[in-house]
């Protein structure tokens, strides 16, 4: 029985519980067993919380027995990127500087998921402070791609994508600042959604670049991602940047198909630089949309090629400010050799931060320092306006924009670690949606013939139009069928 439970989608697991044909206890044991059996090779989890999960499962089973399930997620095992504060459960952001930190409160999204009855079984691996595209910047070891253990799952939410792909849990949450949900979703062959900036609360989410960070779900199917997004979307008075706009029903229109949909294809995104296998899979997905009755529209995003440059000024600038709080005073690591306060700050940060956070703090400090602000940060913020205008223009002629998530399939572990700039370029297609504050997702569009690795199609939508994105993604998913499950060797 257990052997089959972990391979259910989140929606199927919820249906099983709703019909009284299974228990949350069995689902949780199946998930914990699967993690036990596979995670020494995958490395998706930084820690599991079996006792809390078992207690939550018992409560969920009690509600189900009384016919009082809280939501479609009630009793279903999920897991969280280790960037979300969990009351009483260590939260490190994959950094030594937060090792041993036990938050005194829950992130809003954690409260929302638990209020919906979802059972959190553990915290997931990631790049340190969400800075990276391969999960190799974790201070606690890399995560591996379930489709090929020698390759990266993508980052920064590598554990969140790998855990779903490896059938360890039925859904996860991650965060996306420049592509950190969509890239790992594409690399691991799962669905990942970065909602519109402001759609999901960030209260209790460890900050990286506050004008870009957004929380979103991973699911094995579009429906699973929609169910999770439904549970976490909405206004939060504790997050100044959270929107008061009403939340759409993401599930009701899911099967609406693609007929009449205008799919914008940015000519700059297919103009070269893609591997042959990625280009073929993306073009096949576009042809599928046409066959389904959608209309392909040629659009232009002329400033998207400046996205990486603008991002690597804005994000490090904001990070250098956000990470100033890690100073050894109130929480986390303190390295004090008795030489005074300033020395304590510097020693703590030297020992606690890995290379990538240091690199970005340095870059951001430089970009914000006296004499450079106008040339770097202010200019980047103006370019951001131009990037957003490109999309506004494109959305006059189309309903969604479609293209690749990344130039290649998952690269090999170690391939790009020596050259940070090469690593940054993995986000060339995802970064613009963050700069423009727009919703985007990755949906599997097949396996690359040459490598057998998953390819993702990226869809970007109008502000707060996640419902159309999800419907469009579902239309492709229904046509393409599910990817074969990875064989974890």
């Amino acid at each position, binding site marked *: 029985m257990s052997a089959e439970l972990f391979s259910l989608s989140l929606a199927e697991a919820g249906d099983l519980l709703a019909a009284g044909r299974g228990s949350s206890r069995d689902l949780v044991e199946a998930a914990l067993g699967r993690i036990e059996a596979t995670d020494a090779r995958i490395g998706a989890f930084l820690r599991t919380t079996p006792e809390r999960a078992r207690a939550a499962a018992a409560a969920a089973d009690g509600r189900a027995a009384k016919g009082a399930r809280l939501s479609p997620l009630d009793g279903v095992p999920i897991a969280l990127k280790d960037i979300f504060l969990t009351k009483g459960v260590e939260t490190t952001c994959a950094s030594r500087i937060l090792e*041993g930190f036990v938050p*005194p*409160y829950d992130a809003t999204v954690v409260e929302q998921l638990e209020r919906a009855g979802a059972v959190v079984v553990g915290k997931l691996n990631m790049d340190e402070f969400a800075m990276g595209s391969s999960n190799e910047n974790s201070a606690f070891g890399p995560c591996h791609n379930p489709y090929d253990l020698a390759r990266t799952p993508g980052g920064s939410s590598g554990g969140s994508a790998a855990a779903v792909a490896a059938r360890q849990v039925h859904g996860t949450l991650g965060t996306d600042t420049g592509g950190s949900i969509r890239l790992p979703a594409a690399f691991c062959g799962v669905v990942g959604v970065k909602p519109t*900036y*402001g759609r999901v609360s960030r209260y209790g989410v460890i900050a990286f670049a506050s*004008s*870009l960070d957004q929380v979103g779900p991973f699911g094995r199917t579009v429906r699973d991602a929609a169910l999770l997004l439904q549970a976490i979307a909405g206004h939060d*008075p504790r997050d*100044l*940047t959270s*929107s008061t*706009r009403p939340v759409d029903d993401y599930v009701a229109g899911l099967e609406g198909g693609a007929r009449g949909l205008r799919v914008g294809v940015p000519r700059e995104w297919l103009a070269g630089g893609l591997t042959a296998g990625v280009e073929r899979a993306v073009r096949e997905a576009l042809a599928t949309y046409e066959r389904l009755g959608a209309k392909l529209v040629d659009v232009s995003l002329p*400033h998207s090629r*400046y996205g*990486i*440059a603008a991002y*690597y*000024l804005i994000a490090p600038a904001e990070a250098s400010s956000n990470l*100033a709080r890690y*100073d*050894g*005073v*109130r929480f*986390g*690591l303190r390295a*004090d050799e008795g*030489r*005074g*306060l300033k*020395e*304590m700050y*510097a*020693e703590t*940060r*030297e020992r606690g*931060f890995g*290379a990538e956070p*240091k*690199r970005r*703090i*340095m*870059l951001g*400090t*430089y970009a914000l*320092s006296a004499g450079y602000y106008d*040339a770097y940060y*202010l*200019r980047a*913020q*103006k*370019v*951001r*306006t*131009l990037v*957003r205008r490109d999309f506004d223009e494109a959305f006059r002629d189309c309903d969604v924009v479609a293209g690749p998530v990344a130039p290649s399939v998952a690269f090999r572990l170690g391939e790009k670690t020596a050259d*940070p*700039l090469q690593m*940054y370029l993995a986000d060339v297609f995802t970064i613009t949606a963050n*700069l423009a504050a727009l919703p985007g997702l990755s949906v599997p569009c097949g396996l690359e013939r040459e490598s057998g690795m998953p390819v993702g199609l990226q869809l970007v939508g109008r*502000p707060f139009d996640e419902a159309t994105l999800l419907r469009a993604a579902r239309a492709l998913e229904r046509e393409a069928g599910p990817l074969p499950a990875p064989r974890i060797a």
Partner: protein
Amino acid sequence: MSLTLDEVRRIAALARLKLSPDEERTFAGQLSAILDHVAQLAELDVSGVEPMTHALAEGVPLRADERCPGLPPDEALANAPAREETFFVVPRIIE
């Protein structure tokens, strides 16, 4: 664009980072390469373009001016590397 080791040390000091000599050399090269890449923004004419200072068009909502409960001191101090009563203890600041 090439950052000198002195510039790297100056930035590290501003950022309260203590770098090893190896790190200083590595970062000088890597940061210079990244700055070369971002220099392409100078190609664009941004005169008359407003900076995107808010990602959300709605503006910033204000909450009601009411008292909200905070964390009890013991919980707020539970993660402190060093504490005394209800205070964080830090190295001596004034000699």
